[in-house]
């Protein structure tokens, strides 16, 4: 019998990274890796340290302590060499406002010199009809797609994409997801920072959650959800959650706006108890569903915060 070993190659290696700005400790002894052929999503609430970490990986910032290696290179000391094989998508901007779409992509293809075809890139991100528009005349979503095309101009082995679908419409999102998946399938290590948990849930092979400058979770979605099943439903805002919890002998949380969560597996007998209690007390029932937690719930549980992660970060 032939045994095939499938090994993941670490392209990004962060070990004990600390970033300090004066008295502010933005990143505190962070360690993680990102592998070739995978999409690694970096999530975190406001000020969690994810942008500082990614900018250290891109070579924009020098670590206070700890080491960062990307494609075996020190990004801060060897940024020019690294950039030959690195795609970067900034959260916003990065393009001359008066420059036209196709001219900009041509410019970046020439800078990288790796044989990417500008016309094909413009076509692939869905901007062929806007090829002669200047950057300042593009919509927010079109600007994001142009920025992605510039990252692809490197034909990268590693790509750092900051909020790639921010402000992009549904069709544009599908296009971006397809391109990012194809990029990873081609062997590129994609590191994607996003505050859109739904986006991470759709595309990420692996999720790293930052909070207060530290990595508090690192794994596949299945790993992060494991052991955290729930039953979720809608009913009266005034429902007596304490009384319900006592009746079904499981914790019940109110998420507000008439939405409730029972922290338990969706066992049929438990569901029957729940619906019976609601019927006995004259409460309506809507949107009943059970199963694994959504990434948003995983995120809230881990960060113990009711605030969704925002794009402003240190």
């Amino acid at each position, binding site marked *: 019998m032939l045994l095939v070993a499938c090994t993941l190659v670490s392209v990004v290696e962060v070990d004990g990274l600390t970033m300090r700005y004066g008295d502010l400790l933005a990143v505190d002894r962070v360690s993680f890796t990102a592998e070739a052929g995978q999409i690694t999503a970096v999530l975190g609430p406001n000020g969690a340290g994810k942008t500082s970490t990614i900018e250290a990986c891109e070579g924009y910032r020098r670590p206070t302590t700890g080491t960062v290696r990307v494609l075996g290179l020190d990004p801060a000391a060897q940024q020019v060499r690294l*950039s*030959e094989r690195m795609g970067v998508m900034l959260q916003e*901007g990065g393009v*001359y406002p*008066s*420059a036209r779409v196709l001219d900009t992509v041509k410019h*970046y293809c020439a800078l*990288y010199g790796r044989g990417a075809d500008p016309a094909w890139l413009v076509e692939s991100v869905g901007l062929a009809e806007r090829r002669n528009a200047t950057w300042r005349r593009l919509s927010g979503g079109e600007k994001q797609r142009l920025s992605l095309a510039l990252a692809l101009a490197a034909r990268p082995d590693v790509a750092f994409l900051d909020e790639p679908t921010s402000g992009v419409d549904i069709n544009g999102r599908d296009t971006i997801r397809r391109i990012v998946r194809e990029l990873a399938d081609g062997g590129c290590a994609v590191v994607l920072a996003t505050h859109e948990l739904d986006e991470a849930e759709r595309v990420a092979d692996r999720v790293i959650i930052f909070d207060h400058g530290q990595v508090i979770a690192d794994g596949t979605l299945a790993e992060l959800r494991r052991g955290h099943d729930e039953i979720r439903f809608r009913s009266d805002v005034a429902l007596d959650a304490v009384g319900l919890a006592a009746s079904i002998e499981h914790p019940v949380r109110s998420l507000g706006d008439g939405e409730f969560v029972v922290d338990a597996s969706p066992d049929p007998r438990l569901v029957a108890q729940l619906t019976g209690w609601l019927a006995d007390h004259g409460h309506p029932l809507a949107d009943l569903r059970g199963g694994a937690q959504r990434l948003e719930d995983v995120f809230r549980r881990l960060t113990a915060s009711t605030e969704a992660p925002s794009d402003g970060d240190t």
Partner: protein
Amino acid sequence: MSSLGTQVRTEVQLVLRNGEQLLLTLGIPVMLLVFFSVVDVLPTGTDDPIDFLAPGILALAVMSTSMVSLGIGTGFERTYQVLKRLGATPLGRGRLIAAKILSVVLVELIQLAILIPVAFALGWAPTDPNWLLALVAIVLGTIAFAGIGLSLAGRLRGEINLAAQNGIYLVLLLLGGMVIPFDELPAALQAVARLLPSGALADVLRESLTQAGDRPGTSWIVLAAWALVSPLVARRLFRFE
């Protein structure tokens, strides 16, 4: 083409395709040269105003490109994170700066190639001009003005930088001996004007090309001092992000 060559071509294209930049670098110098040569209203103290104006307008052209055009463009590129993004390409920050310097030189060559023939066409006939010395003055002036422009661009927000560059341009134009002779300024302003890089450049260009400088010795020292100090200030103040 190398990444440096690619970037130089883009930088020059951006200047030449931008109407405001063209007005600043070519339109205003050519208009001032032609208008005040034909309409003799300035107290130039020369038989033909073109003899006074031509060196002054060459100095103005150098200032327009190396300070205002470079400074405003770089300021907006910094605000729009163009510098940050380009810094993460194989171009790197070092070649990005080199590309900006080369593009300034190329635009200045285009300016000189247009302004000098226009001045000759308007009757300028410098006697025994020392073009090599004038070139040295232009190089020093370019360094001095670029340092000032980048000092502002590297620290101020885009719109504030734009206002500051335009304001300083106007002051340096009016007090710089480019179109108005130093002698016509009030005594207190004269003292200040002679210490400005615009006044020093116009004066040494006038001395190099027509032997009609006001105080060329002092002006060379002032110009060299600006060329030494302003890049150091820019190096200290400039931020890519």
